[in-house]
Each structure stands twice: as structure tokens, then as C-alpha cells.
């Protein structure tokens, strides 16, 4: 059982790392309920 299954998830992606939408897709397939997802830029 995935550790994310049934959990509410907040995603902060990194523009120069893994962006929010990519993490979101992974989290959803692991059964997570994505309540917020964004990508931020630190440069």
C-alpha cells in the first residue's frame, strides 16, 4: 500500500528541479488527494 494512498497532499515543485505538475501526476497514481500544487522559482 502506498504511503500516499488516501492522504491529502500539498505539492511545492521547483522550477529547476521537479515541477509541480510532474509530482502531481506521480502522487495521484499513488492514490493521493492533491489539494494544492504549484511550482516556484528561486532564481
Amino acid at each position, binding site marked *: 500500500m502506498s504511503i500516499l494512498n488516501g492522504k491529502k497532499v500539498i505539492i511545492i515543485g521547483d522550477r*529547476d528541479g521537479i515541477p509541480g505538475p*510532474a509530482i502531481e501526476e506521480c502522487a495521484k497514481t499513488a492514490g493521493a488527494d492533491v489539494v494544492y500544487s504549484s511550482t516556484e522559482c528561486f532564481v
Partner: protein
Amino acid sequence: MNSIIKGCGYILVHTPDMVVHNGTTQTTERIVNPDGDYLKALPSHLRTYEQALHYAPNQTYIGNMTPDDLAEMAQPFYDKPVENAARVGEFGEIMPEGEFYLLMQAADVFDLVHLDKDFVAATKPAFAANNEVITEDIVARIKEGDELSHIEHLVNDEHAEGLYLDDKLVGCVARAHDIDVNLTAHIMHENLVSKASSILALLYAVRNAGIDKSEIEYVIDCSEEAVGDMNQRGGGNLAKSAAEIAGLSGASGSDLRAFCAAPTHALIEAASLVKAGTYKCVAVTAGGSTAKLGMNGKDHVKKGTPILEDMVGGFSIIISENDGVNPEINLDMVGRHTVGTGSSPQAVISSLVTDPLDRHGMKILDIDKYSPEMQNPDITKPAGAGDVPLANYKMIGALAAKRGEMTPKDLGNFVAQHGLTGWAPTQGHIPSGVPYVGFAKKDILAGKIKNAMIIGKGSLFLGRMTNLFDGVSFVIQGNTGKDEANSGVSEEEVKSLIAQALRDFASSLMAE
């Protein structure tokens, strides 16, 4: 024929007081945590001008050191001051904050910048000293100055934005309207800093291109500021405004906005305008961003490093008709991140790097140098963002291994040979691909490399209009103009061939 890179200007301004008063990390902290430890510790982490001057990445940015010199240094760079540092380099200069306030006044045409008269008297000689770039017409725009009490009144009672030097008030930027939120003193300050640093970059680019100012027909500003009032926020035109003060009397212009990807978009547009014959000479220019000063300051203070985001950056690149000498922009090899590309790092790099190469039957290893995001790792590593250029090179190298162009074991060599160590300040658009254009021009002319790919990437999602990422790329290569001219057949040559054929025919008839 392809357009060529005629000249480049790269400038920095050391702005420690603007870090404190104008950087958004600090202005936000003053609202949410005014008595917190960060704001108390901040002043002791600010660098002096001499420290910023002797900082290797800054010397690289203005062309006094090469990327190879920087790559040989051990990181971090901030504790290893370079010996032969100079204010003016091959590409531009590092201007002190006080002199820059005078340039801001020169850039102001609405009587918004007010300076203390004693400060003006003390600073003007140094400002006017570099008369090769800061010409008399610019110096003539500096006013005698106001009484300090008047400036204090504007700041304390009239919502003006203070200009500080060593934490002392020496001037201010007044608001341009009583109620318009787009013309507040804060926004006028931000826009005037962008405009003034763009002007300085334009002046150096013209000097370095060896052209007359009147030759520039069009200017494209690709910074990240929005100029306009409440009825047309972001209306522009910062390009033409900067061209006016820089003395480019024959230029028109317009602004191009695309977050950090804008400089690469703008260079493709400039090269296209010149290749199409619309204009003979176009300047792409951008000033710097006050908002990003000290952006990662909390992490720098926490890790005990100086505040390294204390530099406003600017650049200008002049694109002109092919002169048969200078490196050219190959518009047949433009990479594009499209709406349908997707946002995974692999999809992004494929669209920007391998797609344009595949269209030309070229391999990843056929490009000698890649210039993606050239952020200085000294700034990003303590902040947890890692080494951004290195991350880009690893992704490009991984794609090369995946395509069978090299083995995964070659990744280290790929990064060393085809990569660069980042040297640009984290000013958004400033580090995005373009810092290497000046060096690429030099290295191609010297025969050190044969080509380079410039990659600009942008975070469109920050504006909350789309979740899309963005990016474009292009290739700079050695000049092929003369070859192209030789490969074609001119009208004169056609006439000559027909005449010769007729003479031969006539001779053969006479012989019969």
C-alpha cells in the same frame, strides 16, 4: 544571410542598500516579522563595494575573467577574492550604488528622482570620469540637488521611496500619481532601476560593437518590469525610453516579456528582423530587478555567507547584418517548448536541445558549448536550489547517453567539455542563457569553439495565467556569410555566362 552578433555589453551595479529597502524578501519580512532575527542580522552580511568588485563571478560577468578561469577555482567563490579585479572590463563595468543613483536621475524625465545636493557634489566627479561611456549629455542631466530636509519630507510625508547609501538617506524617488497603484514610488523606483541599468548596458554594447549610436534602428527590451499606469499596466515601452537617454536617436523599439526566457525570445526576434531586412541593426537590452535583491538572503544569513544577491544586472546585445566576420545566429536551428511539450525536465530539454539538432542531423556532442541557466552556484547552493547549470548539463548529458551518443560513464567529461560554471546573479532573465553570448562571440572568433547553443527558460506559472513552462533556444556559429555569397550566382555572373555562351555559339557558326 544570417544576422550576426556585433557587440555585447554586460554591466553590474552593487546595490547593498537596495537589498535592505527594496528586495521583496526583505520588504515582506518587514511586514510579517519586523522584529525577527533575519532583519537584525542582515546588515552584518552585506558586502562592501570592494568585496563585490573582487568577487570572481562578478569579474567574469564583465569580462575580466573567462568562464574557464572561474571553472578552475574551487567553490565557494565568496571567500576567495581575485587579485587583479577592475571596475571596467571588456564587456562592461561594476558601478557603485552612489553613482548609479545619479544614473537613475539621468534616466528620469518626470522629475521623480531627488538627490541631496552634498551627495551630488561628492559623487558627480566619479560618475563623470568614465566619459567614454557616460557622455556629457548624460552628465548634463544631473541636477544640482535638493536640501536633505526636502528629501526627508518627501519620504516621510509624501510616500517617496528612499535612496540610501551606507544606510544614510541621500535621495528619493517620488510617486508619479496620488492614487494610481501602478505609479507608486515603489514601482517608479523599480522601473527607473531597470531603465538606468539597461541604459548602461546599451552604452557599453555600442562601445564594444564599435558602431555609431545612430546605426541602431530598433531596440527590444526583455526585462521583467511592467511600465504603465492604471489603465495600461505593462503597456511599455521601456526599450524606446532607454534608447532616448542612451542617445540612440535613430531607434524605435518595443518591449518583449516572457519571464526569464525573454532574452532568448528577443534575440531570435532581433535576428529574424535583421535577416528579413526589416532593420539593419537591432539592440536587445535588459536592465535588472530590485525585487530579486537578497531573494535567498535568509538562507545566506543562516549559512553564514555574505548576502550574494546584492548586484543589479544588465546586458545588451547588438544584432546586425552579416559582416562576413562575426559569429552568426542560425535561425534554422531554433528550439521551442510548445504548449503540448509538457513540463517534465526530459520533455523540456528534448524540445529545446535535441529537436532542433535532430532536424539538422546533428548530435548533442556536435555543439561545443551549451549555455542554459547560468546562475552562480555560490548563490543557489546554500539556498538548497543546487547548482542549476550543472543540473541542466546532467540532463543534456543523460539524453546524449540515452541516445547512444556516449556512455553514462562519459557524463563527467561531457559536463567539463560542453558545460560552463555559472557566474550570473540570480536576477531572473539576466542569467538565462545570454551571459555566455559575449564569450561565445570571442571564443568562436578565436577558433576555440565552433558553435554554442543558448537556452532560455521561463516560469510562466508565476503569473498565475497558465501552468505552462516555457523555453526557446538557438545556435551561434562561425560566420558563413562569405561562403553563402560565393555559393550563389549573381546577376552579373549570369549575364557573363550568357554572353560567353553567345560568343561561343557565334564563333561556332562562323567556323562552319
